[in-house]
């Protein structure tokens, strides 16, 4: 599952640990044994991924509910 889910404002964040700007790159998301890949803002050095509140409370919650369905 690919696609760019970053917003321009996400790329204004810096990784506090590495002190570099975030870049968009593939990140693997895993939930209940299911894995998917999406392009998300992340630190190019340590790989720390930024999940925005909008993404977490929006489509990420919707996907979780699908995977939780019996």
């Amino acid at each position: 599952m690919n696609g760019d889910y970053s917003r321009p404002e996400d790329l204004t964040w810096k990784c506090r640990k590495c002190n570099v700007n975030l870049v968009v790159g593939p990140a693997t998301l895993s939930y209940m044994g299911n894995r998917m890949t999406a392009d998300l803002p992340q630190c190019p050095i340590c790989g720390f991924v930024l999940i925005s509140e909008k993404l977490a409370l929006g489509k990420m919650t919707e996907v979780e509910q699908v995977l939780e369905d019996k």
Partner: protein
Amino acid sequence: MTRYDLPERLRAVIGDAIRPGGLALTERAADFCGFSESARIVDIGCGFGTTLNHLRDCHGFWVCGIDISDRISESRGQPVVQASANSLPFGAGVFDGVFCECVLSLLPLSEYALSEFCRVLQPGGYLVLSDIYLRNPCQAQNIDGQPSCLSSAVAKSERITHVKNLGFELLLWEDHSGYLKEMAARIVWALGSREGLMKLFFPDTASICDRDAIQRARPGYFLLIARKKE
């Protein structure tokens, strides 16, 4: 918009892997059946030709496909016929295997199609079905008649009875509902909401009541392999 547009709509959202499990279930079935390299296989509802290309390229089978739509140009060199699954343009007993992946539940009269699959198989030939079934079919009455991939989805026991009554020996039934859930999750991710998922599959039925009925019927996914009795 018809039920047969669904592959195009799905492809636009999630790319080429437009059925649960993708080629993993195709490969599982091909291995299980142990076809010889000269096997003649027909893929019912071959769509974009993904299974045709795979079975020819990876197994060397002689393959051909049928599809009701005209979206069949991407199968690379294999014979493809535009035809209905309920009236196959082939003689009796000409195939070693019939693959029908995520198609049967789309058909308005799936029992006719199954009898056609039996007719074109030679004795001892294999029927490979992968499709949606209803794990709670008593809740399905509210979704009857909707033009969707659930139109002809039935319970496990009903599907197995259909197959056995036609003269098949059931060799394998496996539940792969996890693949269906995974695909639903991918679509929700791509479209942003479960609302989008329901509209994709049920464009003509927007009521919450219908959607609740679909959820209560607990759609699942199966792989069935049966052999035509000698």
